[in-house]
């Protein structure tokens, strides 16, 4: 039981997908200007990533490995993720058109979000079982959402700061992301404590 907890905690904090693995920076920079958008993007990614981890585990374990088709792993994962993203987009468009418009290009871009492909592949590398895969995907996505929300909170304040003109916008956002990453390094070693 504790090992599952460590999988989730490790994915959320210690190996935070954005701050430590430095994955998924594109939506992290793109949709973190406003808190509401960040929450929406986080929710969408959480849904997609958890589904993708489950689906990719099934495909890998029951389809690719028995047929010795591991070389198709990346390809088939991408296709699966693309389909799930499409589905999510349709649902969001129906339920929250404004969120759909605000997420804009970043929603279909979840497809190419390296975090979404990276986590299922990591699952395979780390030899996670089905539940672990799901939890790892979920934990990573929660970590992503957490990073996005925290970042959005800071950016909303930064918007009013007197940042030197050359550093306005993306530059200061990248510096902030770097410093947040530095802070998250404090969690290093927590998952290895015995």
């Amino acid at each position, binding site marked *: 039981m504790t090992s599952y907890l460590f999988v989730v905690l490790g994915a959320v904090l210690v190996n935070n997908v954005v701050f430590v693995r430095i994955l998924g920076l594109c939506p992290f920079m793109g949709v973190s200007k406003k808190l509401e958008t960040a929450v929406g993007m986080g929710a969408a990614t959480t849904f997609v990533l958890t589904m993708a981890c489950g689906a990719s585990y099934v495909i890998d374990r029951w389809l690719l490995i028995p047929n010795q088709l591991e070389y198709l792993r990346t390809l088939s994962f991408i296709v699966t993720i693309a389909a799930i993203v499409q589905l999510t987009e349709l649902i969001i468009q129906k339920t929250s058109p404004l969120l759909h418009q605000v997420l804009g290009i970043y929603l279909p871009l979840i497809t190419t979000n390296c975090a979404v492909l990276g986590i299922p592949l990591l699952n395979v590398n780390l030899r996670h079982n089905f539940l672990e895969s799901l939890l790892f995907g979920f934990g990573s996505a929660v970590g992503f959402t957490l990073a996005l929300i925290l970042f959005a909170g800071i950016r*909303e304040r930064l*918007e*009013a700061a*007197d940042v030197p003109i050359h550093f306005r916008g993306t530059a200061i956002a990248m510096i902030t992301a770097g410093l947040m990453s530095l802070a998250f390094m404090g969690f290093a070693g927590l998952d290895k404590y015995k």
Partner: protein
Amino acid sequence: MEVPRVQDHSSAKGGGVSALQRLFKFHGGVKPAYNKEASTGLPIAVAPTPTQLVIPLHQSIGGMPRPLVSAGEHVLKGQRIGGADGNVSSAVHASTSGKVLAVEMRLMPHTSGLSAMCVILEPDGRDEWIPRQPFDYRNATPTETRDYLRDAGVVGLGGAVFPSYLKLNPGKQGKLDTLVLNGAECEPFITCDDLLMRERAEATLKGAVIMREILGAGQVLIGIEDNKPEAIAAMEIAARAANAAAGDSSIRVVSVPTRYPAGGAKQLIRVLTGIEVPHGKRSTDYGVQCFNVGTAYAIYEAIALGQPLISRIVTIAGNVRRARNYEVPFGTPMRDLVTLCDPLPDSDRVIMGGPMMGLLMPADSVPVVKATNCVLIGSKALFPAPPPEMPCIRCGECAKVCPADLLPFEMYWFSRAKIFGKAQEYNLFDCIECGCCAYVCPSHIPLVDYYRFAKSEIWARELEKESADVARERYEFRLLREEREKQEKAAKLAAKTAAGREKAAAALAEAEKPATTPEEDAKKALIAAALERARAQQAQARPENTDNLTPEQQAEVAAIEARRAEIREMAKPHVRQSD
């Protein structure tokens, strides 16, 4: 913070006027240097009538009153010269008898340095009243009473100048628990209410009794800061007499702890009753109404003596040798008052109001109006320029002193960056601009200026939004109407023509095609002809029109021009809502 305090004044004074009163604290507040002694030494004096009075028509919150007099007319003291216009508006009267010299744009006692319509009055020295008679409010309907007070020009004299007739409305229940009389007067330097209570306690109390009857209020609480013992004593004597006459003890004088801004209406209501009236809500919904003591006196004069509001007590203080309170007719230039008090040579500005919330006047020639509770003369030594503004370090001092429990530094942060939506999320509009935050700020940031800026920007935007909504509606209606007219026209044509359908279709096509038809050509020719005529007319009419006019004609033209200017003025959107 919510610790109730018990103040007992009756034991010291004896008598049932100020019974045990449970008091509540409001959050924050500051204790600046009060500087009130300078102007309390001498009794209220009557200011001499100046050689010319400039009486602004717009002296209260709400609609601009329409002028009722024109140049050359003779008016009596107390004669209405501006009639209330619209739902929220209050009349204006001649402060003395004399001749109207002009109705024109004059510099207003307003920080903007802009002008507005004023009646210029030359006193004839006779000071001749209109016939005055008391108003029998007991036998009048509430609407009649309120109309009378509106036409008597009674407005809140605490500084907000909100028309009092609108506040003399008991609300949904038809009666109130408490009438609060605000004698706290927390601003430094200002002592006009103090002196009013000392010298005219009885009349003020009578005014309070009248208001209480109109409002159906159960009790009257008179809140006075404990740094005014003479006023408290005087009001207690008057209250005891009033209670004895009524045979109960429902009028109570309550001494409240001295702390700025205890005289804020909402803060005083909270201190006396524990009720917090939210922004945008009426205090009557919570069974309380609050009036300034000066307003109570004005209501007494209007109803018991039949005198409209034409003067008020004004404190002249600051950088002067003889600070004093004067009874000043409205329209008196501030300069005249300042001269009376012997200003020091280094005086460099005139402020209307106190040092915490007062407005800087564009010149000392601006007139005293109903909102003028104090004319404060400043100098570099008395009010030095603030040290340079430093960045906010979010130390939170401002939040500690904010009487509205706001987070001033957050409001500042977003107002400064012009992110108004965020500033509003931090409840910018609950800010009463008391200045406590700016007073304590270690970075010397003019915080209130940022709030004023943000508020007026937001108001302007809201107004724009409203007019955009109106425009959208009208545009959509127009589209609808055009569509309908087109169809009607087509239908008419179809009915008229014997040939029927083909022609109707053609007509419809015609209506849609903006090609020139013979009909239109004819119209164009007509227009061209009219154009010629107009040009000729203009060339002829212009010189004739302006030369050789009799004085009467000139006056008439001036009046018409004034009216036009006024119409233009009124057509402009009104920015400020009542507060």
